[in-house]
């Protein structure tokens, strides 16, 4: 097999498959990239058994190819000197010759027999949805950050996807805060289905979705959730954990509602966060007629700042983790945010004025 590719497109493909490449695996074959060809395309695949990624490249040739290439290939391609890369595979000794400009490599490939087969799943009837990559990215960015990265409660390492008729909703939480987001589309026709998608796979997906506008097809299949876009097949194995019922945690009536300029409050909170310390990064929020006062006092010192707000309902003051507030203010892009309070120990709910189907709920810190 011999082919010439653009360095940029090959590097981009390798960068994508690298997301599922384990640094170390008990199955040594998995520490490689699988290069395969069928009649008219060449594919690169990796898996860490939780995530499978496959990218296809155009290819004309009739020799079937199947070889494992060392993971180093990504860096090798990245640092090549010329814009074109020539790959030659010797089927007898499985060596891959790479040449580009002055640089020449000869990599030792391996037989692919130990590498698990990746069977591409296709959606069963009425179980898939299509969404633009930019919209998907916006949704995931405002949802995934709330999922836990701690390993102590595995269910919260996942984002719960619920599909129901024309509605897709996402729930993510680390038990201290929670995001609830729904999207409606008349074109979608789901049967009722729930799946718990590892937040880690979604964080990696966010990194590779950044290119030009594409259509993403998304569908569950057995124990996986599959994303297909452009030449990429991205399959995340679902978590087999019980997700708690969240219907009771979102209160119906708020005692205080404020609206505040997002950029302004973001700057204030980031200044306050400089002094917030300890496990909880606690700051104090006080709402009184027409203004929100942010206060911190720690071993280093004190700070206080007041922001103008639109305010209705009772006055309130409570302690809250500044990092949790920064997360939402960074992930969103709206002009203003609406914040609902529910008493001193009730949740604080952030809403976006232009999206009634999004809410971010944070529980305060209790000071006895």
């Amino acid at each position, binding site marked *: 097999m011999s082919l010439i590719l653009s360095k940029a497109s090959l590097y981009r493909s390798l960068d994508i498959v690298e997301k599922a490449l384990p640094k170390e695996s008990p199955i040594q074959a998995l520490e490689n990239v699988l290069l395969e060809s069928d009649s008219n395309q060449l594919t690169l695949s990796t898996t860490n058994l939780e995530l499978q990624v496959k990218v296809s490249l155009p290819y004309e040739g009739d020799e079937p190819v199947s070889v494992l290439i060392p993971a180093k290939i990504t860096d090798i391609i990245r640092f090549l000197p010329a814009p074109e890369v020539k790959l030659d595979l010797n089927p007898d000794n499985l060596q891959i010759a790479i040449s580009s400009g002055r640089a020449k490599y000869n990599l030792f490939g391996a037989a692919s027999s130990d590498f698990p087969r990746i069977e591409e799943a296709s959606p069963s009837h009425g179980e898939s949805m299509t969404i633009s990559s930019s919209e998907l990215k916006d949704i995931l960015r405002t949802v995934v950050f709330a999922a836990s990265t701690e390993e102590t*409660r595995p269910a919260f390492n996942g984002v719960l996807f619920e599909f129901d008729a024309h509605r897709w909703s996402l729930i993510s939480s680390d038990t201290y805060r929670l995001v609830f987001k729904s999207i409606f589309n008349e074109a979608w026709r789901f049967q009722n289905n729930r799946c718990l998608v590892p937040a880690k796979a979604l964080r990696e997906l966010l990194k590779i979705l950044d290119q030009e506008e594409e259509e993403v097809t998304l569908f569950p299949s057995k124990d996986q959730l599959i994303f297909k876009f452009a030449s990429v097949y991205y399959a995340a194995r679902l978590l087999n954990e019980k997700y*708690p019922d969240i219907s009771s945690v979102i209160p119906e009536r708020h005692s205080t509602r404020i609206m505040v300029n997002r950029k302004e409050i973001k700057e204030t909170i980031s200044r306050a966060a400089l002094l917030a310390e*300890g496990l*909880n990064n606690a700051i104090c929020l006080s709402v009184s007629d027409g203004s929100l006062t942010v206060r911190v006092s720690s071993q280093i010192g004190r700070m206080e700042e007041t922001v103008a707000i639109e305010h209705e309902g009772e006055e309130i003051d409570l302690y809250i983790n500044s990092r949790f507030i920064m997360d939402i203010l960074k992930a969103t892009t709206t002009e203003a945010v609406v914040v609902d309070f529910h008493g001193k120990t009730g949740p604080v709910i952030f809403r976006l004025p232009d999206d009634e189907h999004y809410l971010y709920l944070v529980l305060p810190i209790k000071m006895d």
Partner: protein
Amino acid sequence: MEKQRQAILLADAESFYASVEITHNPSLRGKPVAVCGDPALRHGLVLAASKEAKAYGVKTGQPAWECRRLCPGVIFVRPHMNRYLESALEMTRIFEQFTDRVVPYSIDEHFLDLSGCERLWGTPHEAARRILRQVWDETGIRCRIGLGENPLQAKMACDRFAKKRVDGFFELNSTNYAAHVWSLPIGNLFGVGPRMKDHFNRMAVRTIGDLARLPREIPTRRWGVNGLLLWLNAHGIDYSTLQPGTLAPQKGVGHCATLPRDYASRQEIEAVLLELTEEACFRARTLGKMGTTVHVYCRGADFDHPSGFSRQKKLPEPASAATEVYPVAQQLFRRHWDGRPVRAVGLNLSGLTDRRCYQLSLFNHREITNSLSAAMDEIRERFGPTALFRAASLTSGGQLFTRANMIGGHEK
């Protein structure tokens, strides 16, 4: 103005447990006495020996049988931990009449800072003599005092010299430190244990002076800050002070229980683990704290083939209730226990944070566990530690009722 010279004293009670027993039973005075757990049981180890017993070679930590072989006429006395705590407090009270800067270092050792007290008590030497006499008159316990310009010199003066002198007093200072200390074997330096001694011996460092004469980079490069610290110790330099905060705030709470016999069944060991969890959580709550990390420790029964483990795990969120801590402790135990009989089990709760300030959680109703714990604490406070207990304590493995009669693993 010339910098005032520091006068730091370390007062150490001679054969403390044994001395306290003798004050309670004067007929023992002048006889070889060993304070020892039940000589019939395996935790019958010598906790303290009077100086008459020590003359026969009896040492702290020896098993009872060995002690009897060395000194056939030895009189075994069972420990009374309550008495020792009382006597220790009494000694602290006496020291506090001389200075308000008293830092207890162990049950029978106290640091006293007498800097600037010359007008009150005379020279530090005179003050030390008064302290020794007053402790003897009021408690019947003989103390020894080391004097130095810093805590290290005081400790070295006491351990290496004052204990061997009839008047029970010795002074080290920056001028005489090298002359007295450098000829001592390296193992006598504060901070050097048997392992460190072997390391030094392999480097041909046999005396404290040998270490002092090395360029400081050599121990520093090899052992980092700890190496530098030992080198400074060899020179009698110690930058620590007896200001409040010298003793770091308590980092963890927990206990280790030596079992009355080797436990081989999971149920029995887990019963003890649960009791230790309850105990550690209770102590955390009394301090107004919650723990963030739980540490489980198991020591295998076979001395010749040391086994066991010591592992820790972060809790999902800070906790001070056994119901939250125990599942993690149990998980650690089940993952790391190799199934061989166990001689001792320990549990520690660390990373203590303020219990009154906590992040509320969506699926964990801490208010309920908190008020339950508070109710349990109140019952135990009023009616004793065995008034309310978990059913596991009634099983064959339970140690609660034995441990309730102990302090620090020894009889009250």
